[in-house]
């Protein structure tokens, strides 16, 4: 693979990680908040 291909692959993996991390943060954060807010 040429350097150009490695760059494209790295950018593609970066987008994949972003699409993975955003919903995980929303859902994980949301479920944790339920415990924090309602647990009293």
């Amino acid at each position, binding site marked *: 693979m040429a350097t150009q291909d490695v760059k494209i*692959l790295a950018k*593609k993996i970066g987008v*994949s990680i972003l*699409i993975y991390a955003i*919903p995980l943060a929303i859902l994980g954060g949301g479920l944790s*908040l*339920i415990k924090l807010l309602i647990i009293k």
Partner: protein
Amino acid sequence: MAFDQSSSKKITRGTLTRDALISVILYALPVVALVIWFTYTGETPWKNPVRDYAHVSAPAFLKFLEPIFKNLKSWGFIALALGLGVLEFALGLYDNKWTPTERKIDIVCFLAPKFLVPPVVAYFSLTLLPTLLPGFANVFSWVPFWGGFFLIAVADDLTQYWYHRLHHQIPFMWRFHRTHHSAPYMGMAMASRQNFIYTIFFSQTYLTATLIYLGLGYPALFVTAIKSLITMTAHSSIAWDKPFYKYRILHPIAWVLERLISTPATHHAHHADSADDGIGNYKGNFGNMFFLWDVIFGTGLITRQYPSSYGIKFYKEEEWYAQFLWPIFKSKKEGSELAANGPEVGDEVETTPELVSA
């Protein structure tokens, strides 16, 4: 042509920001539903010492279906896909378009990921996640079954919607998804016909694996099985949805179905090689299990008709290894998007009419 070249120029920062914000609300919906539920009922299942609360609270009728879904996940879908494939052949739905090159691509893309993906996902789930998130295993196992089902369904499928949509709208990502659109026919094999790098970096695979690690494994079993069934039949050349459009009495069901889930009509439109006939919509219809995302984001087109031809205009029937493993292996076909110095997107290049496939 399947890359959204025209609209990629029109995709404004505003559109993406709007759709991203809508997505945040959609992702949060199941959590909000759970907050309302727990506030209303006063339940506090996280205090329950039973670690697999979600499993215990599963409705009785799902317990009955559990072995079916378990078998579907382990071997059932492979058997179902092969059975569907045989039926498609028997009905002659591939015509004479299944050339030796297409045959190799379909078979390699169907078989190879079944051996190569599970070890990677197993490593991610069993080694990487416990290392990155120690002590988080099953922390959300208190989520009731219906809540987990709703949450996984939205999380998995909306994530795949975005993953898919961006591969059509961001030029540098298109070639990782091109193999899925290169076939000039539709069939059950299309569901798995992907470049391996596209498949191995599926964001929703790892998101769902993480949610399973966090304790939502039981509802995930049902969601992923239903999703596989819908996705496979939406790609199949057997149009199961036709009777719903033909018989007037079924029209109300059709109206709901075609807006809720991917049907052969809406998903075939996504695989069309042209949008000129008003039926093809390769610029949209990105939904996999749910078509609802396309309805919400305005990327959907419902016509209740099927395109007359499929594929991509700039297809050069590239070698199977290039379609499966680009950019690791390149095509030797001159001018191909998958060639060493090929264009990022085919229609950036001026072409003579004879180079344009029908």
